[in-house]
């Protein structure tokens, strides 16, 4: 069941959404369709408008312009409670004076649901999240991970269509973050709800998302599944934001055109016949983007790889499973990921090849992928 197959009936749609505070434009005429049951991650640095977008969908912010639809219904002017959404916040936002049980049931009590039904739902949610032993405690008596479970439970009991997560794991330490990440993914597989998840952590985005929306300056730069985002970034910004260590950018220019085009790097040339260009190539100043794992050091020629360039080893960073080697090629610095059994010394002269079939070429002026 792919996202596009169900897109004829989107779960959440955003049309021409704009948000501005005076002269400051936080969101710029944004369109977004999210399929039913899809896990979508809004990824970007702070200030890119991702939280603003989420708050607009939740109904906590009234957009300056544009409209929001949930399950085909225009909810732009609806109260948050009438939108069929549940929200989980970074700071957990549990009511400190209420027990876990009261925290979970608060929304249900507000809506005037019968007591037995409330008890049933609280029981079910606390079973799913394994917080049954904590029901009588106050939030101050819980650990960070437990608090966030309760916060998720608060959305769970309300039986909502759409879950909204606003950086839910950012306040947790690394180990707990990895654990809860898996739990959120499991929860999504079990419930099948639509989930919209805001984060600045690319690992969370890549591991959780069906599709990632990479945002910058109030616009969506690229909206694709994680592998496409990783392998075929639409522009220099997305390419540089995703991946750690980040993609190498080599400045040069394209000579020739079409299948016979070459990328001129310093005194050498890289044939682009193996590169799947999105647009016909033509001579222009451009940037070759190669991920560290797509650079071969001191190896034989293989399919899709370029001719060898002379390089000098600068620094070697062993990372356990593999090593990161910093090199100087044609006056430009780049990093290559090599197997840890390959040994290099600083100052050593080596040959490097770029796997052009996996690389990206960008127009230098516009930054767009070619």
């Amino acid at each position, binding site marked *: 069941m792919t996202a596009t197959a169900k897109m004829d009936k989107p779960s959440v749609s955003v049309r021409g959404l704009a948000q501005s505070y005076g002269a400051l434009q936080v969101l710029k005429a944004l369109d977004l369709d999210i399929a039913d049951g899809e896990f979508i991650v809004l990824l970007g640095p702070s200030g890119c408008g991702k939280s603003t977008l989420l708050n607009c969908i939740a109904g906590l912010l009234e957009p300056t312009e544009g409209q929001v639809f949930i399950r085909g219904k225009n909810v732009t002017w609806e*109260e948050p409670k009438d939108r069929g959404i549940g929200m989980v916040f970074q700071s957990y936002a549990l009511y400190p004076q209420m027990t876990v049980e009261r925290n979970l049931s608060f929304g249900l009590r507000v809506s005037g649901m019968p007591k037995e039904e409330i008890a049933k739902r609280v029981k079910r949610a606390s079973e799913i999240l394994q917080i049954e032993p904590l029901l009588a405690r106050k939030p101050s008596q819980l650990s960070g991970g437990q608090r966030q479970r309760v916060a998720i439970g608060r959305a769970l009991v*309300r039986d909502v269509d759409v879950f909204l997560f606003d950086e839910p794991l950012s306040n947790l330490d690394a180990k707990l973050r990895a654990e809860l990440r898996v739990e959120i993914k499991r929860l999504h597989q079990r419930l099948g709800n639509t989930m919209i998840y805001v984060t600045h952590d690319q690992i969370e985005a890549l591991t959780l998302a069906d599709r990632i929306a990479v945002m910058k300056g109030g616009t969506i730069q690229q909206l694709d599944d994680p592998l496409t985002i990783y392998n075929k970034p639409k522009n220099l910004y997305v390419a540089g934001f995703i991946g750690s260590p980040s993609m190498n950018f080599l400045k040069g220019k394209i000579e020739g055109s079409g299948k016979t085009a070459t990328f001129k790097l310093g005194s050498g040339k890289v044939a682009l016949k193996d590169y799947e260009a999105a647009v016909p190539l033509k001579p222009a100043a451009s940037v070759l983007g190669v991920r560290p794992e797509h650079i071969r050091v001191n190896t034989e020629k293989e399919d899709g790889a370029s001719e060898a360039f002379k390089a000098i080893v600068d620094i070697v960073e062993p990372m356990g499973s593999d090593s990161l080697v910093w090199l100087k090629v044609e006056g430009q610095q780049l990093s290559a990921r090599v197997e840890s059994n390959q040994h290099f010394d600083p100052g050593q002269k080596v040959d490097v090849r770029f796997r052009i079939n996996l690389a990206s070429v960008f127009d230098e002026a516009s930054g767009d992928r070619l």
Partner: protein
Amino acid sequence: MSDISIMEPSGPKPKLWLEPSRIGVYAFLVITALYFLFPLYIVIITSFKDLAAIRDGNIFWPQLVYPEGTHWYDPWYRAWFEVCTGLECKGISPNFWNSVIITVPSVIVSIAVAITTGYALSNWPFKFSEGFFTILIVGSFVPYQVMLYPMVLLTKNMGIYSTLSAVVFVHTVFGLPILTLLFRNYFASLPVELFKAARVDGAGFWRILLQVFLPMSLPILTVAVILQVTGIWNDFLFGVVFAGLPNYPMTVKLNNIFTSTFGVKEYNVEMAATILTGAVPLAIYFLSGKYFVRGIAAGAVKG
């Protein structure tokens, strides 16, 4: 591996508290405490003396023996039930009740209104809320004297001038700017996500205030109650201007007792009346001092 040796604690034991710097600190504290406690001591022992002992005795020494038929509490009894101002000799007790009748509703109403206004200003911004808030801040710096005459006219036109209601009204109005500021800043210091979570849960304006924010507001409520109770109880100006003769609060009555030139000057009764008047704020401070400090730290000073 040869030359290292673990160093044990050596030298003389550190002195516990009688170091010169400590002596200086304690001396300062003792002197300061005495400076404030000594007058209080004089007031208290004088209030238990009879007039003969005040005239003849040492001002620093309490009276230990009372003549036949008199008691140590006689000046206090006189202050509460009998002391005269002008032709009226009912003591200070009716004015105590006036002060209670003024203080209780003023405190409740001003805090109830301010907590709602502060909450609205902090969490439900409306078109001119920032401007409104600025006016409020400016308002809290306007000296009361400037507003005195307009308020007299206002209460006269409302038909409540010279009644206890007028005093309650004036105290409520003048308490609002500073209290609203206090509550707005406190609510602004609470995590905004809490408010958002409550809205997603479907709670409205009043439910969020009463069920989510109010239970978290104990520290700031304590501050507000202390500020208002002591401020209103100690007030002299509004009492003397707005209450009218039979409705004077305790402070005004106390002043009238002092300035009354009728007959003998009864220092002991005056001292007793003074302590009775000051007892309420004093008790409030003693009972809630800890919470007061906590509340101040909890957000009263945050912008």
